[in-house]
């Protein structure tokens, strides 16, 4: 069962990676990174389920916080001027 969870999360990750790689606009890539961050939280959760250790959830919390701050910063940057300028 756990293996099945890992496989589906890996499928999600690869789909996100595909979008990050393909673009075509900067916000598309930023969105891919944002979603990838949330998927990583899911990864940590499944790892915590597998091992029964709670430090994985600390990583998940920190990861979602950092990804949120990063996304807000990226969004502000996009609002100000394009990536090409």
């Amino acid at each position, binding site marked *: *069962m756990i293996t*099945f*969870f890992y496989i*589906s*999360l890996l*499928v*999600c990750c690869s*789909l*996100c990676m*595909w*979008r990050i790689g393909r673009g075509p*606009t*900067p*916000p*598309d890539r*930023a*969105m*891919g990174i*944002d*979603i990838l961050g*949330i*998927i990583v*939280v*899911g990864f940590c*959760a*499944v790892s*915590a*389920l597998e091992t*029964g*250790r*709670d430090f994985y*959830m*600390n990583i*998940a*919390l920190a990861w*979602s*916080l950092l*990804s*949120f701050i990063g*996304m*807000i910063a*990226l*969004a*502000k*940057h*996009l*609002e100000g*001027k*394009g*990536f090409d300028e």
Partner: protein
Amino acid sequence: MTEIISYTAITIGMFFNIVGCIGINRLPDVYNRLQAATKCVTMGTCLILLGIMIHAGISPLGIKALLCVVFILVTSPTSAHALARGAYKSGVKLWKKSCCDQYGKVSLINAHDVMKKDVITVSPDTPLQDAVDLLVEMKITGMPVVEPDGGIIGIISEKDMIDYSNKSNIKTAKVRDAMSAKATVFSPDTDINIIAGVLSTGKFRRVPIAENGKLVGIVSRRDIMHILTSGKKKEAGKK
């Protein structure tokens, strides 16, 4: 029992995650993708974390999972909104089949704020020749036809005059004969977007604004252009 419930929740969560990730690859533009991804992936991940919480019960792991659920529910839609706004401001185009763009419209301005109040008008019994002279002299392209008591009965434009001159002699005609009698009239508190929509259909160049049937102003294409350009006029002049 708790094991079954938690594993079911996690499985459903995985399903939503995969659907969301397919969405970000299949949908046509960044806004659609953001919508799909944020909804599905947020819900999927929250379900996974809830499953963990049910599995772990009241323990450090369970409490942290719950905390993570709350945190993701707050942050993920926020960052998606910020990203969509950033994408819009950085000039990413909407998909060509998107039906409307509420965010991009001119903000709420009423006809009252835009209209010209000192309108050049003409009475229906004026000779058409005088009206032609007046249009040319004032350098305008059309004017409302107004009864002496202020009621609008039509609008006369260059197009009406030229049409009429093709059909018969303008020397003997009156404004009443050549004017378009069905003028589209708006009230002063009409949203300017509606008027802009009417003006952009190509049929009218100007619309009279009336309150209780009396003319109070006129909004032309040029007036709409003024709100679109306001503030940057000086910069453009320098270049």
